[in-house]
């Protein structure tokens, strides 16, 4: 991420030629970029502006709707299900994202050891990320089936009675967190790449100073891994706020039991495409945008306190 702005300038072969080439190279540049310029206008810029406008109207696909000022936003704050969905989404994000980081970093450190069979282990950790989300949801519904599922079957072996998992208001979100942790392989790979980038000399120097395993982890590995943790934290938080496919599939879009799995985007989807309250749903989308932007900004603001870039 830090290298984004580096090297944006392209070398000019011969300076004298610059003026002569400029119209032609301008033309080429625009021509090459033209698909994206059209895409940007049609699929991003226009919908974005339209969405702001809709959020201030009572637009629905069935009727044209009219300008209602900030009514949608005011109504939202009185909508109980809106607050429930925010609570569920924040609950999931606050628990899943940190757990994902702890679990992911630990796994990556285990996978970074030089021992036999590492290729096989790495493949095993990565496999779940290849499972399509709908299939993942169905698979875990079956694993967590209270009567015949494998998880409760295994708990039974050690003499524990498993909970009702997805059928219980208290356990439905933990269930979702569990199955989301199962698909963590992608971030593990990014952590692994980060671990590979830590120069061996740092560990050697620490060993000369008599550092033990924990001290090396605490003072060499973790600080140098912070840029990668930072990246995964931002991406993880953004993704967690947009949770949709898993809870939708598992509850047939109902968010059951007792709306404990009604996530923000599900509520948005229902309003837009079930009740056709598209103005209202657009207002929700903008609130989501603002939440995500503020969260990202917040993480960025704290980052210079805890993110250490090598060589800086």
């Amino acid at each position, binding site marked *: 991420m830090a290298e984004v702005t580096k090297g944006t300038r392209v070398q000019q072969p011969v300076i004298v030629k610059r003026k002569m080439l400029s119209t032609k190279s301008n033309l080429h540049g625009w021509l090459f970029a033209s698909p994206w310029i059209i895409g940007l206008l049609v699929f991003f810029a226009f919908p974005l502006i339209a969405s702001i406008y809709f959020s201030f109207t009572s637009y629905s696909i069935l009727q044209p709707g009219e300008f209602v000022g900030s009514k949608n936003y005011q109504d939202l704050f009185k909508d109980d299900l809106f607050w429930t969905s925010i609570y569920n989404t924040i609950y999931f994000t606050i628990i899943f994202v940190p757990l994902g980081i702890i679990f992911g970093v630990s796994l990556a450190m285990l996978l970074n050891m030089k021992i036999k069979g590492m290729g096989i282990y790495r493949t095993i950790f990565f496999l779940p990320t290849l499972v399509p989300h*709908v*299939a993942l949801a169905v698979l875990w519904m079956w694993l967590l089936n209270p009567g015949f599922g494998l998880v409760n079957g295994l708990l039974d072996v050690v003499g524990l009675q498993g909970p009702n998992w997805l059928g219980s208001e208290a356990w439905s979100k933990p269930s979702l967190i569990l199955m989301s942790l199962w698909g963590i392989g992608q971030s593990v790979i990014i952590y692994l790449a980060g671990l590979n980038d830590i120069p061996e000399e740092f560990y050697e120097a620490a060993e000369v100073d008599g550092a033990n395993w924990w001290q090396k982890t605490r003072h060499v590995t973790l600080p140098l891994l912070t840029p990668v943790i930072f990246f995964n934290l931002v991406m993880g938080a953004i993704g967690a706020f947009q949770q949709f496919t898993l809870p939708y599939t598992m509850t047939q879009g109902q968010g059951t039991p007792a709306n404990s799995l009604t996530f923000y985007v599900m509520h948005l989807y229902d309003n*837009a495409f079930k009740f056709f309250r598209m103005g209202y749903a657009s207002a929700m989308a903008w609130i989501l945008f603002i939440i995500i932007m503020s969260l990202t900004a917040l993480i960025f603001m704290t980052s210079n306190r805890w993110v250490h870039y090598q060589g800086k």
Partner: protein
Amino acid sequence: MEPKVKIKLQKGFSHVGLIIASAFFIVPFIWMVSTSLKPLTQVFSFPPEWIPKPFQWSNYLDAMEYIPFFTYLDNTMVITLLSTFGVVLSCPLVAYSFAKLEWKGRNVLFFITIAVMMIPGQVTMIPLFLIFNKIGWVGTNLPLIVPSFFGVPFYIFLLRQFFLGLPDTLRDAAKIDGASEFRIYWQIMLPLAKPAVLAVGLFQFMASWTDFIGPLLYLTDETQYTLSLGLQQFQTQMGTEWGLMMAVSTMMTVPIIILFFFLQKTFIKGIKFSGIK
């Protein structure tokens, strides 16, 4: 002698940790395949049994009948392949102009491209639906294919970073030889960027193959459903047919796993590249 013992001990602990963690990741898979081969009576046995008795291969045939599997597979393939083709065609072209061509407005447009990546899809989802509705594309697979021909900001960004890392010397030499800008791109630079293009293509393939909300929004007729949408419908209607559902889940996952084993290196490199740069 002592450090050697210590290292051995450490490796032992690592193996134990790895095996426990691996179990968490692999057991659900084995369970999926195992259930997919069980007769219904054995599916509902408690405590759970691991080995199907007898192996009920007919689950797969039944599943293909209950949901029109091949129709859904066809639909999924068409969307996946065309949208991947679109991405591979458009994104490198745009990325190349950002990385190697000099033109007015380039930096501004690149900045906007990065900014667009931050916008959650839900914001543009509703107006896009209305646009597609207006031009009569709702109920067809076009909204899931056509936009990819106009570039995806994240892929453009990744490819641009890759192009920046390629040297200019070949480009300059070709220029002196009088090659046109497009020929330089097509015959020299694009082949050099093959690993990155392949990675981006893979990302799109995966995204498209597993997409759920897109088909849910735009595919209204059952004959057009993709595998994801089909499985979700099946689950809604036949919630207790676990053997059949696991068979469908397995069949949906296997193509991606095969692809992964063939292109493992590209996969991993692509993910690393997206995370580090």
